C-alpha cells in the first residue's frame, strides 16, 4: 500500500513535469481542506481500474527539521492500518515523496460532511433535516464508533466536520468517521490535547475533560455524539462556548457555563467523581458559583421529554462518564426501532414522496497546488459525479465534465517500498552505499483497508445508486 514515488529521470520535485511518479497517477483538482496537520486535496485517479474515481489526498505538514517522521503521521497511519469498517474512512494509499520525504495519504473521497449538511439546512433550506436522515446519520455514526470503541480506539475529536457522508455512488449516504489525528489505540499515553499543536474545538468536549480530567475514556466520544445529535436536530451547535485561547490547555469556563445552562448544574450526588476533578476543586467560585436550576435541554432541542429521541439524547449527555450511554447501548435504543427506521443511504429516504435534498459538495479551491502554493491556472469547477452522475439533475454548484480521455494504464497498485527506491531516497545517507538488500519473503502488497478522514475527502465515481437499503 505504500508508494515511494520511485521515479526515473526526475527527482520527485514539485509541480509540472517534475512531479513524482506517484503524483502522476492523479489529476489534481484542488484543495478541499486545511488544518494544522497540513492540507487536503481532491484528485482524480487517472488509471484503471478506478479511473475517474475521486480521491482525497492529505498532505502532512513537514515535521520540524530534525524531528524525523511526524509522530502524528505515524500514529494516524498506524491506526488507519488497523481498522476497517464501513463507517470509517478508507485509506487507500500512503505515498512518500522521495525528494523531501513528505507523506501523502490517499483516501476514498466523501463528498459531504455533517458541517456542510447542517450549514446547508440552516442557511439555504428553510426546513430542518428530515427525521429519517438524522436517524440514519446518527445510527451510522454510532455504528462506526461502536466498532472503534470495541477495538479500544478513542477518536477524541468528533465534530460535524469530521463526520463525512458519501456522495453519489454505490455508497451514497454512508457515514464515514474521519480524522484520526488525535485518536488513541490501546492504552498508549495521551498528550494533552493542546500539546499536539492541534486546535480542537471545545464545543464537543466532554465535561470531565473541561473540568481537567486526564483520564480519557470512550465516553468522551459519546458526549460529542450527543452534541452532534442535537446539532442535527436544531442546526445549531448545542454548547457554543467562547474558547479561551492560550497554550497549555487552559480552563474553559465559558464552555462549562454553556453546558450548565442547558443541563443544569452537575452535583456530586449524581456524579460522584466530580469532586476529584481538578478544576471543580480549584475554581469553586466560578464553577460552583452560578447555579442553573432548571434543566432546559428539551426546550433547546424542541423535543417532548417523553420522545425516544429526547431520551437517547439526554442519556448521551449524561454528566457522569460512567453512566453515559455507550455506543453499543445507544444502537440498542428504542429510538432506532421506531419509524422511520434508519437506512443505509442517509441522504435518500425510502419513503416515496419525501423530498430529497441535494447537498452541495464541499468547496474546492482549485488554485492551490500540491505544494500548497497558489497557482495561476484558471479556476476549474469540479463535479462530484462521473459520466453517469453528470447526467443527473444535481444542484452541485461546481460541475466539470469528467475527463474521458484514455489515460495510460498505471502500474497496478502501489510499488512497494523496495530497496531500489530506497537507493534513490538514500542518496544523502551518511555512510555511503546501500547496505540493505531485499530480504526473502516480502509480503505481497496489501491494499490498505483503512479509513481516515479529514475536513475534506469525498469520493465519487460510481454509478449513482438510488436504492436505499435498510439495515
Amino acid at each position: 500500500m505504500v508508494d515511494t514515488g520511485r521515479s526515473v529521470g526526475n527527482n520527485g520535485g514539485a509541480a509540472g513535469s517534475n512531479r513524482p511518479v506517484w503524483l502522476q497517477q492523479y489529476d489534481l483538482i484542488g484543495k478541499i481542506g486545511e488544518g494544522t496537520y497540513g492540507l487536503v486535496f481532491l484528485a482524480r485517479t487517472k488509471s484503471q481500474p478506478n479511473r475517474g474515481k475521486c480521491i482525497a489526498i492529505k498532505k502532512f505538514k513537514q515535521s520540524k527539521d530534525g524531528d524525523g517522521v511526524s509522530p502524528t503521521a505515524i500514529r494516524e497511519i498506524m491506526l488507519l492500518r488497523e481498522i476497517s469498517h464501513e463507517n470509517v474512512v478508507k485509506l487507500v494509499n500512503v505515498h512518500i515523496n522521495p525528494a523531501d520525504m513528505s507523506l501523502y495519504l490517499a483516501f476514498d473521497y466523501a463528498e459531504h460532511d455533517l458541517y456542510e449538511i447542517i450549514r446547508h439546512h440552516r442557511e439555504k433550506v428553510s426546513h430542518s433535516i428530515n427525521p429519517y436522515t438524522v436517524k440514519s446519520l446518527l445510527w451510522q455514526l454510532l455504528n462506526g464508533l461502536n466498532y472503534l470503541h470495541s477495538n479500544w480506539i478513542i477518536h477524541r475529536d468528533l465534530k460535524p466536520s469530521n463526520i463525512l457522508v458519501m456522495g453519489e455512488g454505490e455508497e451514497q449516504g454512508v457515514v464515514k468517521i474521519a480524522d484520526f489525528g488525535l485518536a488513541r489505540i490501546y492504552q498508549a499515553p495521551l498528550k494533552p490535547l493542546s500539546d499536539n499543536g492541534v486546535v480542537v474545538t471545545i464545543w464537543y468536549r466532554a465535561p470531565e475533560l473541561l473540568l481537567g480530567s486526564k483520564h480519557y475514556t470512550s465516553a468522551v466520544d459519546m458526549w460529542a455524539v450527543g452534541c452532534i445529535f442535537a446539532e442535527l436536530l436544531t442546526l445549531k451547535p448545542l454548547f457554543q462556548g467562547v474558547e479561551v485561547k492560550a497554550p497549555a490547555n487552559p480552563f474553559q469556563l465559558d464552555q462549562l457555563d454553556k453546558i450548565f445552562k442547558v443541563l443544569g448544574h452537575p452535583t456530586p450526588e449524581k456524579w460522584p467523581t466530580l469532586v476529584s476533578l481538578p478544576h471543580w476543586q480549584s475554581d469553586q467560585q466560578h464553577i460552583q458559583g452560578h447555579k442553573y436550576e432548571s434543566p432546559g435541554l428539551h426546550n433547546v432541542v424542541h423535543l417532548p421529554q417523553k420522545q425516544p429521541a429526547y431520551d437517547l439524547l439526554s442519556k448521551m449527555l449524561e454528566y457522569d462518564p460512567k453512566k453515559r450511554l455507550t455506543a453499543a447501548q445507544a444502537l440498542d435504543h428504542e429510538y432506532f426501532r421506531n419509524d422511520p427506521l434508519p437506512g443505509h443511504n442517509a441522504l435518500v429516504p425510502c419513503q416515496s414522496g419525501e423530498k430529497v435534498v441535494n447537498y452541495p459538495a464541499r468547496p474546492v479551491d482549485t488554485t492551490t497546488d500540491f505544494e500548497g502554493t497558489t497557482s495561476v491556472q484558471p479556476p476549474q469547477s469540479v463535479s462530484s459525479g462521473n459520466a453517469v452522475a453528470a447526467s443527473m439533475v444535481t444542484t452541485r454548484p461546481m460541475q466539470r465534465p469528467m475527463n474521458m480521455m484514455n489515460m495510460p494504464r498505471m502500474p497496478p497498485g502501489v510499488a512497494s517500498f523496495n530497496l531500489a527506491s530506497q537507493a534513490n531516497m538514500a542518496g544523502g545517507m551518511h555512510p555511503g552505499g546501500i547496505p540493505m538488500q531485499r530480504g526473502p519473503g516480502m509480503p505481497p502488497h496489501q491494499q490498505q483497508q483503512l479509513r481516515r478522514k479529514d475536513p475534506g475527502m469525498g469520493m465519487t465515481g460510481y454509478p449513482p445508486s438510488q436504492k436505499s437499503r435498510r439495515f
Partner: protein
Amino acid sequence: MEDSAASAAVSLSSLLCTETESFLDESEDESELFNFNSDDCNLPDTHEYITMLVDREKSSFGIHGSSEVHEWLKCARLDAIKWILEKRAFFGLRFRTAYLSVSYFDRFLSKKCIDNEQSWAIGLLSIACLSIAVKMEECSIPALTEFLVEHYYFESKVIQRMELLILNTLDWRMCSVTPFNYLHYFITKISDKSRPRDLAFRAVEFIFAMAKEFGLLDHKPSAIAAAAIFAALDKELTREMIELKMSLISSCGSQRNEEVLSCYSLMQDIDVEKFEVPEYVISPDLSTIRSSFGNFNEDSAITSVVVGKKRRRLRFDDSDQNCESEKDKQH
C-alpha cells in the same frame, strides 16, 4: 575498545533498581504497570481488553519461523538491544517502548537483509526503531540527534529516511501487542504474592532477558508475559503447577499452555543476573535452539539448559563473525 564496550554493557537489574522510584514518580503511564493498588483489574471490560489483545496477536506471531541468522548479526542485535535499554534508562522511557523498538528491529530484519559487516546500518536501524517506538508510545519525545550511537553520526534526514524505510517495510503496522499489555492483568490473576510490584520487576527482567536471547517474533507476547511471571515467581515450577495457574487466566485458553511452557523452559535457563556480566555474553549455539523450539519438546529444553551453561565470553580470536570482530571493524 574495551572501555566503550564495557560502558555499553547494560545491567538490566541495576537499571530496574535505580529507576524504580523515578519512573514511578515521573511517568504516570509506567506506573500503571506497577501500581497494584487500584481496582483497575476489576473493571468489567479488562477481561474483554485482554481477549481482544490475544485475538490480535494470533495474526502476527508465531508465523515467522526461525531463519538462519549469522553470528555477527546476533551479536549486533544484542548490542542494539543493550543500546536501546541504555537509552530507555537515560530518557526515562517506558519498558514497553524499548520492547517495541526491539520488535521493530526483529520484524525489519525478518523482511530485509543487512549485509555482513554493515554495522553502521545496524546502528541506524536501532536509532530509527527506537525513534519510531518513542513516537508511538511516549508523550515526551527526544530530538533525533539525542539518540547517539557509538562510532557513527547520522544526520536527522538520514534517520528520517530510515524511519520511513522501516515504517514502509513493516507496512505501518506499528501497534504491536507486547508482553507489557498483559503483565499487570496476569499478575493480579496469577499471583497471590503480597508484593506484586517486586514480581512485576522480576518479570520485566525475564522479558528482556528473553528478548536478548531470542527473536521476538517466535513467541506470542501473552505467552512471554505469563512465562516471565512464572519464572519470576519460581524457576522450579512443575508443569502441573503452571497449568493450574494458567487456568486462572481464562482469556488465554488452554491451548496456550504449551506456548507458555515452552517460554518458561527457555526462561528457566536464563539467569537474569548473568546479564550484568559485560558484553558479548551470548550463546554460541543459539541457532540450534532457535531451530528446535519451533516444535518444542523436552529435548530442546535440555538442549537449552546445556547451551545456557555454555555461555561464555567470545574472544577476539573466535571464529570469523563474532561480536569482537564486528566491533573491531567499526574502528
